């Protein structure tokens, strides 16, 4: 299995604060890679660097064979990266269906004129892309709320909709930022099933930031541990759990 994503010597600074210091790790194609670590370790920042939202001062990210320091978030999307956000970034003014449909925007080639007149290509595309979206809606079991404005949904369901929006773009790699945050046991079980199925059935590489150790141990193939912006662990779940540095970091032993 090849490495679809290679992070090499990335350093990210905000003014005087070093969010990430010299981090390198690889993600194999088709694996589920969990990025864990105490709060403030730089995990979200790492995801943002991969995705192009933040520009690192040093280092390169090689994705799909192409090495770059920076990538425009839009180009990242076109190249097959899709993601969710820690603090849900759904479009609050739209319904579930509309939100997920926005995930298909790269597949819509018709011009605004055609769309305004509702003719030809525009109509066909709405039909075809709606079909793709409905498949995802069915998979995530959210048929009953498809016309509900997302602002009215509880937190857990919003997270699911966000996953749907990312999934519907048919990405090569899925970047999930705390997809289970704030969920109860049942919701977490559902979410884990979804993530596993997405990975196994469709072969989509998944990089996810997660805090729940149970989930991490259960579903991930590969774990990367960050603490204070540095990498302190990298390997299979079992290896990482046995790593003394990792245990210290979580128990708060000063280091």
């Amino acid at each position, binding site marked *: 299995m090849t490495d679809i994503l290679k992070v090499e010597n990335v350093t990210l600074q905000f003014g005087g604060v070093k969010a990430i210091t010299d981090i390198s790790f690889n993600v194999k194609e088709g694996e589920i890679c969990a990025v864990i670590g105490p709060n403030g370790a730089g995990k979200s920042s790492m995801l943002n660097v991969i995705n192009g939202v933040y520009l690192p001062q040093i280092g390169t990210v090689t994705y799909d064979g192409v090495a770059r320091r920076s990538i425009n978030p839009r180009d990242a999307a076109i190249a097959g990266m899709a993601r969710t956000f820690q603090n849900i*970034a759904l479009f609050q003014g739209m319904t579930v269906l509309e939100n997920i449909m*926005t995930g298909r*925007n790269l597949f819509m080639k018709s011009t605004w004129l055609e*769309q*305004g*007149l*509702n003719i030809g290509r525009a*109509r066909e595309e*709405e*039909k075809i892309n709606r079909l793709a979206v409905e498949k995802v809606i069915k998979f995530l079991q959210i048929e009953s709320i498809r016309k509900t404005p997302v602002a009215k949904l509880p937190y857990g369901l919003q997270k699911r909709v966000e996953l749907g929006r990312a999934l519907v773009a048919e990405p090569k790699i899925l970047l999930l930022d705390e997809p289970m945050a704030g969920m109860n046991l049942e919701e977490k079980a559902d979410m884990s099933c979804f993530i596993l199925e997405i990975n196994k059935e469709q072969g989509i590489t998944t990089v996810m930031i997660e805090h729940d150790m149970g989930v991490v141990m259960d579903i991930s193939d590969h774990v990367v541990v960050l603490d204070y912006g540095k990498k302190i662990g990298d390997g299979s779940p079992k290896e990482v759990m046995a790593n003394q540095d990792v245990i210290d970091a979580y128990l708060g032993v000063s280091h």
Partner: protein
Amino acid sequence: MIYRETGNFVTNYLKDREIFPLKFDKIIVILGLLILYLYVPTMSEYALSAHIVPILAVGLATVGLNILTGLTGQLSLGTAGFMCVGAFGTYNLMLRVPENLMSLPVALLISGIFAGLVGVIFGLPAIRIKGFYLLVSTLAAQYFVWWFFNSYAWFLNYESSGVVAIAPKMYDYWGLGNLFGVDMQGYPARYLLALTICLGLTYFAKNLLRSNTGRNFMSVRDRDIAASVMGISVPRTKLLAFFVSCFYCGVAGGIYSFLYIGNVDLMIYEIDRSFTILFMLIIGGLGSISGSWLGAIFVYEFPIVFTWIGDYLFQGAFNTAVVENVSNMVYGVFIIALLIREPGGFAALWGTTKQKLRMWPYPH
């Protein structure tokens, strides 16, 4: 009950997207169109010239502003400036292009494109500037456009008074004079032209709202970083919104000057006009096309109705200053009250009313 919303099942995705999914609604629309096209032109000249045509003009401008501010979240106070471009554009096209090549509908649409382009230029800063800071750009547009047409007298054909009355022959279609024996300068003809343009553009706007472009607009309004992460080009979306919105405003300006007032006059397109349209938008409900029309009707008709009340019930006690001041107070109160109780404006009020009617006589 004749009006049944249940039992109408959609069988394919395209049907799910229709603007009027209920059969009964479709019938209402057809009836409405028949009334609009066959009965209304026979109404009095007063009704057409003082009420219906001006509402068509300002309503269209409100729809335009809605696309920019309501759908895409870009605050604009330059509406009247863009209307001005449309009015002056139409005038100059009709004046300078040989008769047999140009007619009023064509001139209106082309000047709309001019307005759209001007909008794109003043929309460029929106790529960098966000939020309230963006007000500068549209205000700059408003004042600059006004100054521009005021300074270069060529645009008004060197008319020293600053106001140009539109010549009758400008209403001819391709220099053909009367079309089918109908007086093109007469109000029924003007109304039909305005109506057709407004209906067409409103239909276009509604489609746009439901399409990928509309979703792109709204995503830029709601969370532009997330939008770009999904592959949506935020700059391109913003500029497109400016273009389309200002196109609408430009056409509305042309309609206002040519089909309503009959003059091209800079005083029509000053900043208070921009505010009036903004009030129409807020009261009608941001993001709702039908709301824009409701808001336009309300804001336009209120002073007229109020004056009428004064004349009939209080023997003309309300002079123009009083009417204007009371109107402003009413608009202000309505805006604040609506924002507190029903932020979706009249459009949302209508939706809530429909819901209550569905439930009646049950409270919920």
